[in-house]
Each structure stands twice: as structure tokens, then as C-alpha cells.
């Protein structure tokens, strides 16, 4: 996927005037935060579970190597194989090789953000293998040559009209505006693909160390067909998805669905445990787990380690007023919203992603709703600090900050500066008490007025009172 994060500001401006996108974004609030709030209200122990989940994730991350090795040993016991991939390139090559070894022409795919992260589809296509997305949202995007704008609702930026038009073009059927009809069309088309696919690729929401199982949660059941029908099942997952036991997994599942969609439980929770056994009616003959690091182990032991607790519920972006205003594509890479603003710099480099950690008011809503209590504003601040130290912060901002700090560190000079600013603002405002056009402050006054100071500075007035004995 082409990186467009350096153009974040321009992307955001375009997004704000995109009528269709703005209409689609209007569905986010009613679709997610309102439902989450209801689900949380029905569960008094929700916050206690969040604490447990945070602590458990911290424990796992402390012993990540151990749990991954136990996971691998159990995958092998179940007849599968684990492939360790340090980089996105390693992962792409490994999956391509596995597909080629299986003689694959077409592969079906369940929704997987890690596969987006490693840009898998383009790589397979370039080598003559046709990937077919089977998640409805991803399927729509694939037909359109588009990319996800959200990690659990990839096509949230589209409206019914868009889908209707796309299906009309690709399915060669009469145009319909009935969602049920459109869904049926997709279902019929995908059924054929499921049957002929040589390989099924899915992601994983969790990897269970004690059983060597992988788990996916879906609301469509597409993942089940993707992973049970073809002879080869490849799971692509990042390393931090491992949990020790099935019981631990269920703790996260209780939080995941509620935080994501407000469901008490996702419709399909499907475990894959190795290859087809004697007497099994179906299942793959080959089972591969491709474990992707791609910068994650570098986050261990540092301030960013907390980000590895993320269970990809998307609550942070669903509740983010910035995401709500501009949608996911403006962020310019795979992971949008607050979690993306922390993760993207790690994966594509802070030089390219410099604007993302700054695109937050630090309102703290993301941290408030995070099921595993990731301090997202703190981690965005970590990147801002990194940018400042490496002189990636724009020069004008550095200068401004430097001059301001020079005064702020000298109280009597600071008083003088406040007095001068106060006087200037008041004289610019005149009797109207507000400024409609502020020199050097266009970014403010283009959009809103600047109220004027109501009188002299407080410090001036306070000193005057105290001198004349009016100290209240």
C-alpha cells in the first residue's frame, strides 16, 4: 500500500469536504460508540476485566518468547508448521512460497490487517496468484481497488450507493439499493470462490499457546469457509497475539466484542487447531502459521511496549473526534486513528509518519475506552518527543517554542510579554471586543473570532490593587 502519511494535512482537508465520506462517517457514532456504551452499562465488571486484561497482556509481553515457543511446539504437535518472519518482506516471501508449493491459482482470504500491513495481495497478484477477499467489506474494497479505512469495518467510508454501483459493474446484474439483495449477490459470487480456492489465508485474533490453536472472530462466517474448505490453511498473525490458555482467550473475547461493536460476543468465534485428523469431516491437509514481527520486538522493553497490548477492537478510532472528522484514509497507511498514530511511525518510520502523533488534541477519549488501557496520548507524546529530539519538528514551530520558552523561564520578562500581547490584542479588537482577522494568527481567525482580553493583565491589576491597599 502506498504510503500517504506525509500528506496527512492535505488528505484531511480533502476528506472534510468529501460529501459521501462525511455522510458515511455519520454512521460511526450510532454504529459503534452508542452500542459500546450500552454493552458496557450492562456489564458491571467491565472495568475490572480491563484491569485483568491489561495485567495479563503485560505478563505475556514479559514472557513473549516463552509463550510463542510453547505455541509453536503445540502447532507442530497438531500437524502444523510455524514460520518466523522478522520483516514484512520475509512474511510476503514465505506466504508466496507456501502458496506456490500448494500449486495455488486462487486463494481465499479472511479479513486480516496484518496482511494489509505486509501488502500481501499485491505481492501474490504480481506472482500470478489471485487473492479473493471474502469479508464483505474487504470484498467490496477489492472490487473497487480500494483499501480499508478502519480496522474492523474496512469499508466504513462507503455508502450504500457506492456498493450498489460497484456490484452493478462487477456482478453484471440489475442495480439494487437493497442491502439484503446486495449481500446475496456477494454471497453467491463468493460461494464459487470458496469451492475452487487452493489455499485459504486468514488472520488471527488470538494464538493460544496451550493448544497451538489460532482463533478468528467474524460476524459473517466467511472465515470458517476460508479456512476449512481449501487443502492448505495459512494463518498470518503478528507475534503479540499469543495468549497462554483458552481461558485467557475468553477474557479478551469478553472485552473485544463489547469494545468493538457493542456485541456481547462476536457471531463466529472459530478455533483452528492443526490439520485434518482421521475421522474429521473437513479441514485443511496443511496448516501453516506465519508469525510476523515487523518492528514489534523492537517495541519490547521500551516505552512503546504498552502498544503491544492492543487487541484491535477499534474503540480508539470509533471514539476519536479526529478520526470521526476525517475518516481512516487521511492517515495515509494501514492503521488509522489513535492506535495507528502510535503504530505507524514504528512500522514506516517516524520521518514519514511525523504528522500522525501530532494529529491529536490529547483529549484522552481513546485511552478512556481502550479495553486494555493503553495510554495512547502518552505514547503519541513519546513520538513527539522523538521528533523534537531528532529535529523532525518543523523549524518554525521549534523557533516559536524556543522564543516562548526563553520568556517563560524569566518571570519578569514574561510579565512584560503578556502586557505587550494584552495591549496589542485589545487595540486590534477595539470596542467590538473581538478580532476577526489576526495578523500571524490566520489559522485561528480564518475559522473563528479571537475574543479580546477584557482589560489589563491579571498581574497588572493584582499589583495595582495590592499597592493601593485593596488586597481582597
Amino acid at each position: 500500500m502506498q504510503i500517504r502519511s506525509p500528506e496527512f494535512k492535505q488528505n484531511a482537508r480533502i476528506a472534510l469536504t468529501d460529501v459521501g465520506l462525511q455522510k458515511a462517517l455519520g454512521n460511526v457514532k450510532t454504529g459503534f460508540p452508542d452500542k459500546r456504551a450500552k454493552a458496557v452499562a450492562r456489564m458491571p465488571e467491565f472495568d475490572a476485566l480491563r484491569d485483568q486484561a491489561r495485567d495479563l497482556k503485560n505478563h505475556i509481553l514479559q514472557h513473549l518468547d516463552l509463550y510463542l515457543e510453547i505455541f509453536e511446539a503445540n502447532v507442530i504437535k497438531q500437524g502444523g508448521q510455524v514460520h518466523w518472519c522478522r520483516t514484512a518482506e520475509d512474511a510476503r516471501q514465505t506466504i508466496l512460497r507456501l502458496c506456490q508449493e500448494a500449486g495455488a491459482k486462487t486463494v481465499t482470504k479472511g479479513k486480516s490487517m496484518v496482511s494489509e500491513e505486509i501488502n500481501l495481495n499485491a505481492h501474490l497478484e504480481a506472482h500470478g496468484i489471485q487473492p479473493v477477499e471474502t469479508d464483505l467489506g474487504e470484498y467490496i474494497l477489492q472490487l473497487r481497488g480500494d483499501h480499508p479505512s478502519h480496522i474492523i469495518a474496512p469499508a466504513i467510508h462507503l455508502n450504500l450507493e457506492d456498493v450498489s454501483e460497484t456490484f452493478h459493474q462487477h456482478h453484471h446484474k440489475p442495480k439494487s439499493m437493497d442491502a439484503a439483495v446486495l449481500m446475496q449477490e456477494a454471497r453467491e459470487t463468493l460461494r464459487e470462490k470458496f469451492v475452487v480456492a487452493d489455499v485459504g489465508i486468514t488472520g488471527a485474533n488470538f494464538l493460544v499457546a496451550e493448544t497451538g490453536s489460532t482463533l478468528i472472530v467474524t460476524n459473517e462466517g466467511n472465515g470458517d469457509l476460508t479456512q476449512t474448505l481449501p487443502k492448505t490453511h495459512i494463518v498470518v498473525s503478528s507475534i503479540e497475539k499469543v495468549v497462554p490458555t483458552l481461558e485467557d482467550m475468553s477474557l479478551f473475547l469478553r472485552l473485544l466484542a463489547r469494545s468493538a461493536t457493542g456485541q456481547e460476543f462476536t457471531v463466529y468465534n472459530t478455533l483452528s487447531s492443526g490439520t485434518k485428523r482421521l475421522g474429521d469431516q473437513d479441514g485443511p491437509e496443511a496448516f501453516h502459521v506465519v508469525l510476523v514481527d515487523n518492528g514489534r520486538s523492537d517495541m519490547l522493553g521500551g516505552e512503546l511496549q504498552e502498544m503491544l497490548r492492543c487487541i484491535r477492537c477499534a474503540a480508539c478510532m470509533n471514539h476519536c473526534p479526529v478520526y470521526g472528522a476525517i475518516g481512516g484514509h487521511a492517515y495515509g497507511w494501514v492503521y488509522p486513528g489513535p492506535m495507528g498514530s502510535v503504530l505507524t511511525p514504528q512500522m514506516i518510520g517516524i520521518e514519514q509518519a511525523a504528522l500522525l502523533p501530532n494529529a491529536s488534541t490529547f483529549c484522552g477519549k481513546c485511552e478512556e475506552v481502550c479495553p486494555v488501557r493503553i495510554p495512547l496520548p502518552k505514547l503519541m507524546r513519546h513520538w513527539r518527543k522523538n521528533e523534537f529530539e531528532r529535529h523532525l519538528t518543523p523549524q518554525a514551530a521549534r523557533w516559536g517554542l524556543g522564543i516562548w520558552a526563553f520568556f517563560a523561564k524569566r518571570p519578569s520578562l514574561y510579565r512584560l510579554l503578556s502586557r505587550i500581547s494584552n495591549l496589542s490584542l485589545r487595540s486590534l479588537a477595539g470596542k467590538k471586543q473581538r478580532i476577526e482577522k489576526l495578523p500571524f494568527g490566520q489559522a485561528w481567525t480564518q475559522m473563528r473570532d479571537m475574543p479580546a482580553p477584557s482589560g489589563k493583565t491579571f498581574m497588572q491589576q493584582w499589583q495595582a490593587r495590592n499597592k493601593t491597599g485593596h488586597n481582597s
Partner: protein
Amino acid sequence: MKEPSTQPLVGFFVTCLADLYRPEVAFASIKLLELAGCRVEVPSQQTCCGQPAFNSGDNKNAAALAKQTIAAFADYEYVVGPSGSCIGMLHHYPELFEERDPWKQRALDLKARAFEITSFLVDVRDFTQIQSRFQGQVTYHDSCSGLRELKIKQQPRQLLAQIPGLTLTEMEDAETCCGFGGTFCVKYPDISNRMVSNKAESVHQTGAELLLGGDLGCLLNMAGKLSREGRRVAVRHVVEILADEFAQPALGQAADASLAYPA
């Protein structure tokens, strides 16, 4: 910990915006503190809490300003200011120092003594003597830092409920950010504008004549948007109403009523 005194000595943290834009906010706060039985002083060595540096990743200057603030308020039983955001910054100070740095302990000590005005009045002073003659319908915006870093939600509402003539109508999404965000509003003006437009609409929908809040940054942002859109909603810091100090025109409003709104 020491026994709290009956007439504690409070060091008042003015905040840059109250100093520059709205001295009434500082005077009203001091009046409330005195009504709540405190002795109040304004240390002259205070300037800015350092948040602009901290949020821009300039921890060196943030730490320098933290030290300056810690030193300026070393001798006070409490530090109180009219902003959840600035006081929230004082609560961040310990993050700026290493474990072994002696400033770490001093920062923790300041943090334990630092309160936003409404939470100080309610949580520390259990203050119930609000005497204000305000009559009318208001709405309240929960500024993010106060709400999420300092857990300020019920405190201003409890105080406002003591004013007989005041009706509080809650707006939709009162807890949603107004788009100010310090330098965010000038770094990302288009996004900020969308956020403050949404907020102005929520405020307007309540039918309230007055918007109150606890942070001048957010209030300036919302007042500026409301007046630009020609919406007839006045904007004030909550302490102005609580202290019965609303003789001054509201934020950005002219004393001469004919100049109050765009034609």
C-alpha cells in the same frame, strides 16, 4: 500527611490565559477560595505550566518550567488554578524527572497539593456556600484534561446546582473535545474547525443562553466560533457565575450591546 488547616494558605496559579485574556477568572477564583476559608497569595515567580513544551516533545524546557513552578509554590499548602488543563500539567511533572532526581519527589509533592478550582472547592473544602444571583439557562462543556486527567465532572455541576435561578441543560456530547487542543488548533486548523463547529451546534441545540466551562483555552475557541457563526450564546468561565462576578461582558462580547453580534 499533615492535618489540613482550617484556613489553609493557597498559592494561586493564575494560568497564562486568565492573566492575558480574562483577569476576572482569576479574581473570581480568589474570591471563591476566600469564601471557602482560604488565605490566598499569588506567587510572583510563576509563569506558564510548560504544557506547550511538554506536548510538543520539548521535555527540556518543560522540565525547566516544572522546576520554576515547583519552586514558586513550594511554601503553600495547596496550589489551585482555574484550569483542568494547566493543573493537569502540574500532575504530569513527575514524568519529567528520573527516579533518582531529587526534583522527582518535589514534583510528586506538588502534584499532591495541586487542584483545579471547582474540584478544590468541592472535594477538598466541601464548599456549599455559593451565593450567586444568576438567573437563566446554561450549558456546560467538560474540558478534556479536567474530565479525564483530574476526574472533574460532578464538581462544577454540584456548585452550579446551589444557584437557585440557574437551570443547567446538558448538551449532547458534552464530553467530546471542542477541537482546541493547544497548538493543535493552529497546526490542524481544518480538523479543529470541524470539531468546534460540531460543538457550537451542540451548544446551540440546548437553547441555553450561556455556555460555561472550566478552561479558558476551550472557552476562547468555542466563544470565537459561536460569535463567528453569529450564534447568540454568551461564553464564560464557570467561576464567574459561581462568584457572582458577571458584570463584565462575556468572552468576546462588547460592552456596547449594539456591537455584540455580527449584523
